[in-house]
């Protein structure tokens, strides 16, 4: 499936190359490189997800093996326990502060991006369902 998309994107890239060389051009090699850059972050996210991020040795994977039961596709949503619409990163911080007894990460912290990358990668292919409880 993923390979097919790669091929499609590559073909599209070649067509663009043939018709208009000034627009955004990328090759198969570019796509591979960018995907590898993404997977590096996923890997870092996986490492963080399996490390104690707070002060009590508890880690995310203890309740969420393979990031299961995190439902990234449902965010943003009304988080009934917080009484407002929040993003996945708000819940990640809630988990870091409560079960993990740690300090919240800045929302643009590279570690937060890595955690989100890992969580979403483990959920790839599931249709977006913003707002779903």
């Amino acid at each position, binding site marked *: 499936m993923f390979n097919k998309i790669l091929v499609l994107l590559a073909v599209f890239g070649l067509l663009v190359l043939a018709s208009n060389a000034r627009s955004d051009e990328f090759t198969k090699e570019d796509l591979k490189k960018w995907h590898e850059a993404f997977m590096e972050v996923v890997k870092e996210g996986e490492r963080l997800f399996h490390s104690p991020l707070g*002060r*009590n040795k508890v880690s995310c994977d203890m309740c969420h*093996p393979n990031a*299961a*039961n995190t*439902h990234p596709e449902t965010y943003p949503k009304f988080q009934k326990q917080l009484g407002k619409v929040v993003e996945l990163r708000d819940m990640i911080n809630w988990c870091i502060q409560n079960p993990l007894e740690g300090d919240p990460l800045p929302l643009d912290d590279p570690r937060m991006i890595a955690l989100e990358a890992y969580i979403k990668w483990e959920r790839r*292919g599931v249709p977006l369902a913003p707002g779903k409880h």
Partner: protein
Amino acid sequence: MKKLTRRSFLKKAAIGGLAAAAPLKMVEVVYGQGAQEKFTFAVISDAHLTHIKGTKFVRNFDEGLERAVTEVSFMDPPPDFVVFGGDLAQLGKKEELEHGLEKLSKLSLPIKFVIGEHDFYLDMGEYWQKHIAPLNYSFDHKGVHFVVLNSILTYDSWINQFKDPMERMLGMARLDNPHGSPFIVGEEGRRWLKKDLAKLSPDTPIIVLTHSPLYKIFKPWNFWTDDAEKVQAILARFKKVTVMHGHVHQIIYNQIGNISFYAFMSTAWPWPYPPTYTQKPNNFPKITVMMNRADPFHERDGTGWSWAEVAAGRVTHHYELWENTPRTVYYDEKLGHPVDKDYQDPSKRIPPQIHY
């Protein structure tokens, strides 16, 4: 509303201490009948006590075990014994096992210990066998033959790759380890089991207590015993066989041939149900009605303990779910498999039981 009264009573008992409270009456429901003497046993499992440093342990997990111990102490009539289903420790440390034993010592009942992988892989079961229990043993109780079977061994090739015991422990402790190794009872364990059962008639009801399920649910998380079929074959000649296991931290029940399976709750945290991980296929039992989705904002939701009523060699399993509605799963003689007392009919299911 009997149950509600009892539950609120339990809460008060836990807060107020033993002195202020009168013993509670267990609700007696029996779904089987026969000549055998009816009895109950309680189950506490998967406490995962986690040492931080010095005398510090993870508060949340300590409180789970403490609450289960208090509530089991208040059962009236008391159960005949308590089963501990394994994973007393998080990383097999002496500090963790001793901390757990101290908490369990508040029970004035005999405890039947089953070892979990978190108790085993630091010292390969040395402390456990010296101070807690053998890895395989059996006992007879009121006409039922109980077997405690160690099911959390694995292949030597995996074990031998580690030089450092803690690395080995951490490798096994990570549930979603892509380089993990499936559980086995192993040849020696199966030989022991065969010998243990050899003299029994097929009419003897058998209850096997293990840590991992003696069947195959989901390999990526080791909800799986690799030689399960061989163990099932040893049990095949008996008319009434029940396997009860820990490790999965959630309500699961199943029927394979003559064997009924029931999982224990954890006092520490719930695992997600395997079908919620969408990247890998699973063999999750179709007859299980899943428990309600846990609310992380209620710390004890998704955890609990259970008690089993044994009548005519069949088990009725009562799940005491903290911060949630209790569940009862019993063996239905007509259907020939375990069913949930309230929710088995698909039209009776409720939205929180839908996991995705």
